[in-house]
């Protein structure tokens, strides 16, 4: 430079210096952008992305009329932004505290805590994963903290920037979790600015508590499911378990990016799979019927204090179960509170427990003999015999409670003659009798969904001993479930056809479209319609003056049914130290299974009471005294509820003969 006032080498020196700086910065940029890229990015992506599970709502279980037996209530979280609270709302704070069941001082503390501790950042920074929506921290107990600053237990993703003192504004403080919809609405209706509600998850609720609990079942809490080892079986029972596939729905998920404070960035949503709510399951069960039988069970329980009792009600025209209940029962809302030794309360004993059916089983031998044309209702048998020759050998016949002479088939049923039943079975022979028993549904499950159903115990003829043919027709040396017995009686009520017992009516998707529907399904024909009709008429004799259960008769209605009084097997220690099962004289299973109106059956009711002897009249629990009155009471209530008309007076000649013979 030729300027006189400026030294040229100095400006060159300066220019060189500055340009070298620029060059250095350029090199540094290449380094950062390209060369050191991988190393710098490191785990950035894994920290920045999160996968949020969007919970599907578990479907409802409804009764036939749409009343919710099981439903999923959203667990709402109610919280507050302490920064937008207004002075004029302060008067309503106590009301809010009352609504949320929160001490007023505690509410005031949450409302006035505007900063969280500076140290809370490292605590929450420990895991972006913990903010990923999957973790339920319902039971987090907040660590002790100074009154002016909040504990670091809550999500701070809405907080403002740290100020000069390192404090962070608290923009979201949880007031209460698991708030009900109505409480939420009431709380928001107070109009306190800053109080907000956010949905979190769902809680399974059973609004009718113990009603139909054995059928509906329960499912473990959602948060238990979320933390459970997936390889462990689902803890659920009843329909909740059986229809879990439909009820469960499909959880959705969302993969999105987080900003520096773990807030989601909706504009950068990477992928989203929407959730599908679970399907709803409509049962054939009618809550009103269910209520009637559960009330009756309560009555039985308080009157007789039995070991257990079951009542099943169904419609023989369709096979739909209208009501099914057991004593003892439980409230599925509180399944976790049941003590270990009382776990039996969870069982749907109508399906899971077996008992010896006793006299009710006589319908098998009678139906079989009639169907085969071996006898007519008027055929007579000598019921005073103590032994009879069968297959070339004399067989001892069982004892009778009363002394009988010659009885017609109709009288064998109405008087419940053990020897008569044995002779009817002998007419049929081992194999045919066994086949009829199988055809009536004994010895194998009915296929009713929603329980660990028992097969029952019925040995094939090859394993019979010499007395089985005399004992099995009266319901001994055979074990059945309540449901099997109910189904067998339903065969007669439904005109000789075995209908599949059904508890699920239909399954609808979340939009209400029908996904699956279950209608009347015939499994097989067991006996002809004529035989069924004859049987029905003979069974009417049970609930008559001459029969064993006048207590079951409903005035104006043709009630058909059969009593059963079974001695329970009792373990007895013998002198040589072995234990033998002996029929007890003090413990009985009392049952009455029947239907009405006999000529056009609309309702089948089974009442089975186990071991009610202690409080039964006379110290013995007979089906007549313990079960039959319950049948009648339930029947009477169902007549008015289901508007059942008295049956048509179609009286067959054979029936007239029975009547005549009685006179």
């Amino acid at each position, binding site marked *: 430079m030729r300027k006189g006032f400026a030294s040229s080498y100095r400006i060159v020196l300066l220019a060189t210096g500055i340009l070298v700086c620029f060059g250095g910065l350029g090199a540094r940029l290449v380094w950062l952008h*390209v060369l050191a890229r991988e190393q710098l990015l490191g785990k950035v992506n894994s920290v920045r992305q999160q996968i949020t599970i969007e919970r599907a709502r578990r479907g409802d279980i409804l009764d036939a009329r749409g009343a919710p037996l099981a439903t999923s209530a959203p667990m709402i979280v109610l919280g507050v932004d302490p920064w937008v609270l207004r002075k004029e709302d302060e008067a309503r704070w106590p009301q809010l505290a009352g609504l949320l069941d929160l001490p007023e001082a505690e509410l005031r503390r949450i409302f006035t805590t505007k900063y969280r501790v500076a140290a809370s950042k490292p605590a929450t920074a420990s895991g972006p994963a913990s903010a990923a929506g999957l973790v339920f921290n319902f039971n987090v107990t907040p660590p002790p903290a100074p009154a002016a600053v909040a504990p670091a237990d809550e999500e701070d993703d809405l907080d403002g920037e740290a100020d000069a003192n390192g404090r962070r504004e608290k923009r979201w403080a949880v007031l209460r979790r698991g708030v009900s919809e109505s409480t939420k609405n009431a709380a928001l209706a107070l109009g306190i600015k800053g109080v907000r509600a956010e949905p979190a998850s769902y809680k399974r609720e059973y609004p009718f508590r113990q009603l139909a609990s054995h059928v509906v079942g329960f499912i473990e809490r959602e948060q238990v499911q979320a933390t459970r080892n997936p390889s462990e079986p689902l803890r659920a029972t009843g329909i909740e378990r059986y229809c879990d596939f439909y009820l469960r729905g499909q959880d959705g998920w969302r993969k999105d990016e987080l900003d520096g404070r773990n807030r989601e960035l909706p504009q950068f949503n990477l992928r989203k799979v929407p959730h599908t709510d679970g399907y709803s399951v409509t049962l054939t069960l009618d809550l009103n019927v269910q209520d009637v039988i559960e009330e009756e069970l309560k009555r039985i329980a308080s009157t007789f204090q039995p070991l257990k009792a079951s009542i099943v009600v169904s419609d023989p025209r369709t096979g739909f179960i209208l009501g099914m209940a057991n004593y003892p029962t439980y409230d599925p809302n509180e399944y976790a509170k049941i003590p270990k030794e009382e776990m039996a309360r969870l069982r749907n004993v109508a399906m899971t427990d077996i008992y010896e059916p006793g006299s009710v089983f006589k319908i098998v031998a009678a139906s079989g003999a009639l169907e085969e044309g071996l006898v007519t209702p008027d055929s007579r048998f000598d019921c005073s015999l103590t032994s009879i020759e069968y297959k070339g050998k004399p067989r001892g016949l069982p004892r009778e409670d009363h002394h009988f002479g010659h009885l017609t088939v109709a009288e064998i049923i109405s008087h419940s003659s053990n020897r008569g039943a044995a002779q009817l079975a002998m007419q049929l022979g081992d194999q045919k009798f066994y086949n009829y028993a199988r055809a009536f549904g004994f010895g194998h499950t009915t296929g009713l969904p929603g329980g660990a159903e028992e097969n029952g115990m019925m040995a094939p003829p090859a394993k019979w001993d010499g007395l089985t043919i005399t004992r099995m027709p009266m319901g001994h040396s055979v074990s059945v479930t309540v449901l099997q017995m109910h189904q067998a009686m339903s065969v007669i009520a439904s005109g000789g056809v075995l209908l599949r017992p059904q508890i699920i009516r239909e399954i609808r998707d979340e939009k209400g479209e029908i996904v699956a529907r279950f209608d009347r399904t015939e499994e097989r024909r067991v006996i002809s319609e004529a035989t069924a009709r004859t049987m029905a008429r003979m069974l009417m004799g049970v609930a008559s003056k001459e029969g064993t259960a006048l207590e079951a008769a409903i005035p104006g209605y043709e009630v058909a049914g059969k009593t059963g009084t079974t001695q329970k097997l009792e373990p007895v220690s013998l002198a040589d130290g072995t234990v033998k099962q002996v029929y007890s004289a003090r413990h009985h299973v009392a049952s009455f299974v029947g239907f009405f109106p006999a000529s056009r059956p609309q309702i089948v009711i089974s009442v089975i009471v186990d071991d009610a002897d202690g409080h039964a009249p006379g110290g013995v629990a007979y089906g007549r005294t313990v079960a039959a009155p319950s049948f009648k009471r339930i029947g009477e209530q169902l007549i008015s509820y289901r508007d059942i008309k008295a049956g048509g007076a179609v009286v067959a000649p054979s029936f007239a003969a029975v009547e005549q013979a009685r006179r």
Partner: protein
Amino acid sequence: MTSAHTPVTSRGRSLFNPAAIITVCALGLTFLGLSILFSASAWFKNKQGVEVPYQYLTKQVIGVFAAGALCFVASRLNLDYARRYAWWIAGGLLVLLVLVLIPHVGISVKGSRRWLGFASMRFQVSEFAKLGLVFCLAHYLALNQTRIGELKRGFLYPLGIIGAFALPVICEPDFGTTALMAAVGIVLLFLAGAKWRFILPTVALLGSAFALLVAHNPNRLRRMTEFLSEEKSYHLRQGLIAFAAGGTDGAGLGQGRQQLSYLPEAHTDFIFSVVGEELGLWFTLGTVLVFALIFVAGLVHLRRAPNLFHYLLVNGCLLLICVQAVINIGVVTGVFPTKGMSLPFISAGLSNLLLMGLLLGVILNTQRTWGRAALPERERAMGEVYA
């Protein structure tokens, strides 16, 4: 030199003159700044949680227009006329600088008292003081160019001027601006011809004083040790990650993630990181090149400077732009220790933008007036307010 013989008019009006290049560069940087600023601040929310995507952009656009107006005024002023009032300007600025320091008058943000409020606007006086320092120093050194070899009038007095401006600024405290002022001031002294034997000890002395100050303040010491160690601070690490995330091609405008709460001050001091993430290597390199181009064009322009005052003034303006850019980019890329300093033309901030307008105005002014060097200096200097 050939330029002196070129006809004045054609040179002054050529579109390819250095000042025009600088203007185009400045406008380009400003536009880049607005785009990136929008991207970096569009997600902002106010206290009530309502999104205010245009808040910063609107402010910045208004600032750009205000800076344009200032630029025009500065380009029309008769600089030689303004020299008469150099000491008045200096005095006025010093009074304002002291006013800033008084509690309740100056506005304090995050522990530093740097702003004066006027209506709803806030001005950072030290920004304007930078230009004031350059102006006064150039004026003094031009008046005393024959005494530049003397210790007192050639070195200590101008050093005193620098000190007078730097002292209130360091009290704010604003070490970045102080360092920039001291650096530019001493470079101007150096260019004016101050003796090496005065300059070198001074630089050494200032260096040790700076080290002492750093060691004295734990906060600054921590920053410095963080810088020297491998483990970078959160702030800086997030800045560096942004560059890496951008790669060669960048994530795309509006696609940056780092400004979303990962990176504090993304719209002001660390805006260059956002450029790096959203636009990638070519744009960051381009930005550095554009600043270098401004500097080179300025150097070419300087060769026509008619006298020492103009020479030092324009040189100071160039340095204020380029040294500040070097420091800011150096800090953001982790070459220098973290120091709050805005990136000229690009960072959000009214005061800095206005200063840039003034600096550009001064350069444009000289582009017009240096062609008229034929006029006797004295005569022109005594002439009109507007050149």
